[in-house]
């Protein structure tokens, strides 16, 4: 076996991966503004903003602000303070008639 054969194998491997990718890939979390993610229930996205107010520590409920303000609910504990900049992977859900972001992950910047 020669190096040319290895290159061929490498090319086939990449090609198989690319073909599967092209036919199966749909973006799950895209960067969105707060107003975009809050447009309708079920919207998923990555939003970032400044923590303005922490309502509760357990479970974590806080407000973030960027182009709009949103209430964020997180099951996981994270040590955040007002004025912190956070990135949130989340989904919009309606709770008590109001839209809020259910955070799957909160990352403190």
């Amino acid at each position, binding site marked *: 076996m*020669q190096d040319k054969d*290895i290159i061929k*194998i490498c*090319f086939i*491997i990449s090609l198989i*991966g690319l073909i*599967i990718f092209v036919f199966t890939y749909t973006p799950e*979390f895209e960067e969105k503004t707060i107003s975009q993610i809050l447009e309708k229930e079920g919207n998923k996205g990555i939003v970032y903003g400044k923590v303005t107010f922490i309502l509760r520590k357990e479970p974590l409920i806080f407000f973030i602000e960027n182009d709009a303000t949103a209430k964020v609910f997180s099951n996981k504990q994270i040590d955040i303070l007002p004025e912190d900049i956070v990135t949130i992977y989340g989904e919009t859900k309606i709770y008590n008639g109001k839209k809020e972001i259910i955070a799957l992950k909160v990352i403190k910047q």
Partner: protein
Amino acid sequence: MIILFLIIGSFLGVIAGLIPGLHVNNISKIAFLFPLFGDEGIVLILSMSIVQSFVDFVPAIFFGAPSTDTFEGILPGHQMFLLGEGHQAITLTVFGGIIATIISFPVLIIFIQFLEINNKIFPKIIPFILVFSIILLIFSEKNLSKKLIATFIIFTSATQGLLFENQLFPLITGYFGIATLIISNKKEKIVQSTKTNLELTYVIDGSLGLIGGAIVSIIPGIGNNLAAAIIRLFKRKIKPKNYLVLLGSINTSNFIFSLPVLFFLNKARNGTMIFINEELLLTPHSFFLGLLIILISAGIGGILTIFLSKKLCNIEFNTNKIEKIIIILLIILVLIFNGFIGIIALIFSTSLGLLAIKTKVKRSTCLGSIIVPVLFFYTFVLI
């Protein structure tokens, strides 16, 4: 957009792989400085890491400059380079990586289930394997005086490993890099052949490397080179060429397995996975995307590494000059990554590496600096 990030990641992987001593953990630290989100972040960091795991061997073999993942490959690889077979050595590591990629995907789930079940047994077995490795290292030397020197080197390197905590880069750079570069064949110019001949039997070594990669991805404290060294000790008649295939396989399969280990067991075993765990969100969707990116990047990494190796073969190397440049570069890198204490560790490790070369004792004895601290970790910390 994803494809663009794949291209950028592959490009960064090449750059990172070509810079001696730059480990994926260092790159991950750099990645933390950038706002990487979502699928783009996963694609960039994974493509960079996988491509680097292939290109990593180029500076190790062509320049004798190690990284913490490839230093075991320096000795056989650089020896082949000095014989004008550098391209063959690189191709062997690529072959190992590709075999790992092809085989690991079908066996991925079986491996994870197996390791999940045996997860608690491994830490109990590891100390015995490590003690056995040390005994094997000593008794594999031919006569009594060499056995005594090997014992001395193991104890000294173990002391260095325990004393210089978190100084793995300067230690391995000294033992396997600078010591090799100081006493290497002083030919003025080495013409590199681009001829390659790969036997199908190397598939066995590639498959064996898969076991090493799986172990590295799940057991804390065990690195690629330690896994390779242990496999080499147990499979004593392994030839340098087979060993390079094994190393290439371990290097790549470690990354392939570390993604499912993070996803299923929630354990991050390298800098890339720590970055994904802390800065990104791994969902079933992004896990599947990650596997695809690994597959695509492995092919890209293999092609780029062979291409780079061929390009380097066309350059006539003035080894004396290159060796001096590499030594200076390694000292600078140690100073940047490890500071002044790193330089002290480098001086001690180089001296020990030189002692092993001069006395013709196996350089693997310097692995005492890794084996003994890991042994202590498993004996006194984990259990």
